[in-house]
């Protein structure tokens, strides 16, 4: 039996070897190049060190964030749009001679309510001012207010939130403060503060941030609590790491992505806040143009001269949406799970 198998297998082996080969092409032993087997294979020496080497290219967090972000053409397009809008709204108003307290063309009936044209890009308004000038002046002020308020909100919110999330003692009374503040209507606070402090950049930014930071802090507190008790923090504690180092080195790096997401929602939200407050007459004073005030002034012309209303509204929408998209995409890129 075994002999039969051996023979059979040997036959099969021979068949396989010669199978499909043209008999003429078969190389005769004489023609084969004589190769010493030692030249083809050599014994590899076992090296423990070599088995530890990591072949993958070096990973760098920020480089990967950048690569992921730039990897999408849409991200680049929207970022260019954002940079252009922000730059334009900061540069252009210093070249236009627009002054919200001045109405040089108020008596020039031929300059009122003109539709957009080559000469008047966005047309003119009820007192003969260029809508183009008004809108960009307003966009600049709205951006200044919302960016400043976001920065204050985030800085205060992150610092307080990080400590709040870590300290169980602080949590007890902070949560009560949070409950009280979150139950007071914001409009009430805004009205009272605007009567006390008056109008202007400082008072408006103060009004917008005076209670808003606690929502950021609450958000950060929850995030910190989620990762606070993970084992690597315990390990850091066993190594004697101080709470502050733990926050900056162990907790916040994990939160970059969620903080980015929050900022990308916060900037447009605060622009809307500003628009809302100015619309209600609680925002910047008469002496400052802002998108909110502009829209509020032009609302009455929505039917007669629709460009007066729709142009500032579209500019507001473009700014808000593009800022939001860039923020979201940056947040996505900051999440290491998207890194390749």
């Amino acid at each position, binding site marked *: 039996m075994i002999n039969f198998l051996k023979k059979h297998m040997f036959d099969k082996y021979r068949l396989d070897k010669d199978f499909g080969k043209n008999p003429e092409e078969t190389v005769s032993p004489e023609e084969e190049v004589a190769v010493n087997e030692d030249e083809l294979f050599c014994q590899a020496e076992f090296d423990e060190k070599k088995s530890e080497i990591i072949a993958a290219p070096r990973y760098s967090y920020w480089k990967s964030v950048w690569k992921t972000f730039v990897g999408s053409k849409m991200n680049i397009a929207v970022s260019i749009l954002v940079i252009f809008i922000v730059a334009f709204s900061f540069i252009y108003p210093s070249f236009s001679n627009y002054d919200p307290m001045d109405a040089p063309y108020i008596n020039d009936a031929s300059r009122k309510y003109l539709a957009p044209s080559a000469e008047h890009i966005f047309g003119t308004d009820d007192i003969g001012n260029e809508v183009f000038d008004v809108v960009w002046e307003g966009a600049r002020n709205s951006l200044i207010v919302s960016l400043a308020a976001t920065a204050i909100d985030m800085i205060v919110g992150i610092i307080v939130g990080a400590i709040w999330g870590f300290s169980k003692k602080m949590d007890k009374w902070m949560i009560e403060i949070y409950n009280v503040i979150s139950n007071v209507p914001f409009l009430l606070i805004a009205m009272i503060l605007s009567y006390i402090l008056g109008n202007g950049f400082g008072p408006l930014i103060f009004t917008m941030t005076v209670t808003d930071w606690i929502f950021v802090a609450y958000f950060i507190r929850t995030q910190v609590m989620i990762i606070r008790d993970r084992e690597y923090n315990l390990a850091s504690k*066993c190594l*004697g790491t101080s709470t502050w180092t733990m926050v900056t080195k162990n907790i916040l790096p994990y939160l970059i992505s969620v903080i980015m997401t929050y900022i990308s929602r916060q900037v447009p939200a605060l622009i809307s806040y500003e628009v809302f407050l100015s619309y209600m007459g609680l925002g910047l004073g008469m002496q400052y143009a802002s998108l909110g005030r502009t829209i509020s002034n032009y609302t009455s012309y929505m039917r007669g001269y629709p460009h007066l209303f729709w142009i500032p509204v579209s500019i507001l929408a473009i700014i808000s949406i593009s800022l939001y998209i860039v923020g979201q995409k940056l947040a996505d890129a900051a999440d*290491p799970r998207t890194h390749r």
Partner: protein
Amino acid sequence: MSTNNNEREVILSIRHVDISFDIGKKKKFKAVKDASFDIYRGETFALVGESGSGKTTLGRAAIRINPCSAGEILFNGERISGKISRKQDRNVIRNIQMIFQDPAASLNERATIEYCISEGLYNFHLYKDEEDRIAKVDKALEDVGLLPEHKSRYPHEFSGGQRQRVGIARAMIMEPQLIIADEPISALDVSIRAQILNLMNKLKKEKNLTYLFIAHDLSVVRFIADRIAVIHLGKIVEIAESEDLFRYPVHPYTISLLSAVPMPDPIIEKQRDSIVYTKEEDDPEASPREMREIRPGHFVYANDEDMVAFEERLKKLELYNAENQ
């Protein structure tokens, strides 16, 4: 053997320690009850028990993560449980280090290996200058068989065994006297468990360390430990020299635990019948149980009635072992 123990220096002494956790507002759950044992300098002391038996809780109490609700823990003769001065706290951190169970969870994913390993150095400023620090990190990496070029890598780029070695390097760089190894190999692949154990043994010899080794795997414990304490439902039931415990197990829980060890022989494995341990209700009239010395250096949790049964069992075991020598 006990005389031998008396001559040796006690590094960590756990004395009548209770550890309890709050459940709700008034209820308390006692995870560890009246635990007492000494760990001598230079030995590997293993704490064995099933999951939920309180072995990790007790290990963490020794490193001051879990507070003791009763009893005290002495390190080199000084009390380290309860409220202690900041200087003492720093001293404990420097001299007692921990190796964690899950190497993936215990390393900061957003920090480089260099930072992970030098974290302790930064906290205690244990280096002269930057060069010295880097040299120390390189040395620590080399000690655990990793390469200096791994410094700039992130933990997620490493295999489980490599990560655990980073965890070991991080503890070793502090030059501690005592290391609490909380199931250091249970999260690892079987193929590299031996590597980590051998590394731990090597480092122990080189650096003159003492280990408190927490495990549930008895075959591992037999390999690495000098003395073993068996813990069951927060109660230490038997403490003995490693071989002594395997040859003369007297407490029914220990016997049941030993009977559950799988044998790498299919025939024996087939014949093996696991002895199930059921905890009998405490008889209120029986004398209270306490740790009693049944053989030199071999302690068991028993009362007078238990001792009779245990001694009988011990005699049988001695006879059996003598025959099978």
